[in-house]
């Protein structure tokens, strides 16, 4: 087995294509990476951001964008996927596995020179190396780029001669110096128990993986699946039924694609084109589906109440989000059937009424009643709620915004009727940071028997805030 590693030392910079110069990326208050122009001003990673501003006044600073870094690594992985079916992402680089004897290419050096060209075209500056283990390949790519070690060489001796300063454990460099350890070989010759006690179990595992004494198991990278279909109909579609009929076959294709990749879809984008106009419809699912046909129901609900805006002649269909299926089927499926049914109900409601009309209630930690309750569009990942347990002495129905009450003889009146005070006052004073309130709340009974929750504001105005329903 042979591993090829490509390490991108300037990965944080790669996340900002077309950045100005001089440029640096920060994490916390320290520089993580800086470009060539910034380096010429004497900047280096690890420097504090304030210090770098003094050295180089026109420096452009950005916070690290981990998501864009992931995308850049994914792009790198897709390049390596052309030469090896087994590619794994290991930040800040990618490793690819080859077999020892049979390579469909002439030799690994040839593969590397081809890759170098591909990387240059993609605008990625990567350093690469080959070694019999992934850990060693990563290490050599960082320390001695271009190195090729195979099993035929005395590769373990070569690894043992590397200096300790090249280890990816910068925090232990001082300790190595105190122990007068110069090479990796000297470290590995130490009794393992003592090594683990001094440097942690991670160091022991690292050495084991480095020389191939422990199996290296990485999740393989898989190329993302994008489903895209363009549909042209010879007759213009003018009704919901005709549209559904036209969509049936491409959605059956989607089902096949999902099944082939063991994947699921949770969003479908439809571009409806006709009469020189384009309309984009996005259909979302609460729980990702393994069948494309579920989108038919949503299309039906979306267009049931309104007609098609124009006669449609072309349909562009995209299924952007396709993620691997997780979990497994259960032995007793009742619970999951109910959950699926619930997801389908929410999807139908959202398709017809719009996402903003289907809400979940969230409790925000605030003493002002109108701010404490918030309605969010329904989704599975809603912001966390306040988890305290309140006393049930406030009303269930809230009026938003509070209704102003009339005043007669200094007493509040509701719909022209006098009110009888039952409880209070309860003082709520809060919100000095945005909208300060100082209120005295009372529970009152109206003439017809309702229990109401009213308050007196700063200027002796009375408001109705809720019903004790």
């Amino acid at each position, binding site marked *: 087995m042979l591993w090829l590693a490509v390490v991108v030392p300037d990965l944080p910079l790669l996340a900002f294509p077309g950045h100005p110069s001089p440029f640096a990326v920060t994490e916390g208050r320290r520089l993580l990476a800086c470009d060539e122009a910034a380096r010429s001003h004497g900047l280096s990673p690890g420097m504090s951001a304030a210090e770098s501003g003094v050295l180089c006044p026109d420096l452009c600073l950005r916070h690290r964008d981990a998501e864009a870094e992931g995308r850049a690594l994914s792009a790198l992985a897709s390049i390596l996927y052309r030469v090896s079916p087994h590619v794994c992402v290991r930040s800040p680089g990618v490793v690819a596995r080859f077999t020892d004897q049979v390579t469909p290419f002439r030799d690994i050096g040839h593969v590397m020179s081809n890759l170098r060209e591909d990387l240059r075209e993609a605008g990625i500056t990567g350093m690469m190396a080959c070694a019999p283990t992934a850990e060693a390949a990563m290490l050599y790519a960082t320390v001695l780029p271009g190195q090729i070690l195979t099993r035929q060489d005395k590769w373990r001796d070569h690894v043992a001669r590397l200096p300790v300063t090249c280890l990816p454990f910068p925090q232990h460099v001082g300790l190595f110096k105190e122990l007068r350890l110069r090479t990796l070989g000297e470290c590995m010759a130490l009794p393992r128990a003592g090594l683990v006690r001094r440097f942690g179990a991670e160091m022991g595992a690292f050495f084991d993986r480095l020389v191939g004494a422990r199996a290296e198991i990485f999740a393989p990278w898989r190329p993302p699946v994008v489903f895209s279909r363009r549909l042209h109909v010879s007759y213009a579609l003018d009704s919901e039924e005709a549209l559904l009929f036209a969509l049936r076959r491409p959605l059956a294709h989607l089902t096949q694609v999902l099944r082939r990749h063991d994947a699921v879809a949770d969003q479908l984008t439809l571009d409806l084109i006709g009469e020189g106009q384009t309309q984009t419809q996005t259909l979302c699912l609460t729980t990702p589906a393994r069948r494309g046909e579920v989108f038919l129901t949503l299309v039906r609900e979306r267009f049931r109440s309104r007609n098609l805006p124009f006669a449609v002649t072309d349909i562009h269909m995209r299924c952007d989000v396709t993620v691997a299926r997780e979990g497994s089927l259960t032995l007793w499926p009742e619970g999951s059937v109910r959950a699926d049914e619930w997801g389908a*109900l929410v999807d139908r409601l959202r398709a017809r009424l719009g996402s903003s009309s289907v809400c979940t*209630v*969230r*409790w925000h930690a605030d003493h002002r009643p109108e701010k404490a309750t918030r*309605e969010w569009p329904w989704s599975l990942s809603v912001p966390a709620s306040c988890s305290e347990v309140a006393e*049930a002495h406030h*009303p269930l129905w809230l*009026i938003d915004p509070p209704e102003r009450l009339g005043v007669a003889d200094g007493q509040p009146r509701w719909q022209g009727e006098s009110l009888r005070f039952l409880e209070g006052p309860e003082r709520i004073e809060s919100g000095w940071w945005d909208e300060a309130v100082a209120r005295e709340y009372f529970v009152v009974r109206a003439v017809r028997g309702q229990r109401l929750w009213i308050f007196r504001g700063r200027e002796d105005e009375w408001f109705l805030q809720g019903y*004790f329903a």
Partner: protein
Amino acid sequence: MQLTPALVQAGVTRGIPDRAPRILPTGFADLDACLPNHGWPQGALVTLQPAVSGIGELQLLMPALARLSQEARYLVWVAPPHRLSAPMLVAHRIALERVLTVRPQTHKEALWSAYQALSSVSVGAVMCWFSAIRHSEFRALARAAAQGGQLGFCFLPPVMSAQVARLRLVLRPVPQGLRIDVDGQSRHAPVVIADIHRKASVLCRAGAWRRGSPG
């Protein structure tokens, strides 16, 4: 060996479908005693007609809703007239992630939403509000409720004529508390629940209604 004595014993299943209507106790012993089968009927649409808003009409449902929420069932509120207070729902032991509010724009959309929610087996209870509803529309909703088999409550204004509901409760405030007239149950005197707010929150919290015996 004789099997018959074993078979007549209660608790031995013989593959015969259970004919007893499914109910959920309301939590209020006085009310349970008045209701047919001593609880909220499941798979039926119960009509609630409060004389005015703010007399404890929601408190009547709270113990049953708290129980459903603790069983991880969803509670759907279709076109509620006001906003539900999140801290008070939690105070009544209702899990907020089980609450879904639907705010349709038109009467037709409200009917459609209520129909969808009532006919889904995934929902624990559906509460819907209408300012007016036709008999035919109500019958369609009742059919959906029978199909879904869950709790369904339809809030209507007091002026509406008697609906074709299996169970209709008229709610009025009286000095002693909340008076409930169970329609079509003339043999019972009206139920009066005093201090319903405190009682409901205690019931939700303690779970005492679980042991509540009918009558």
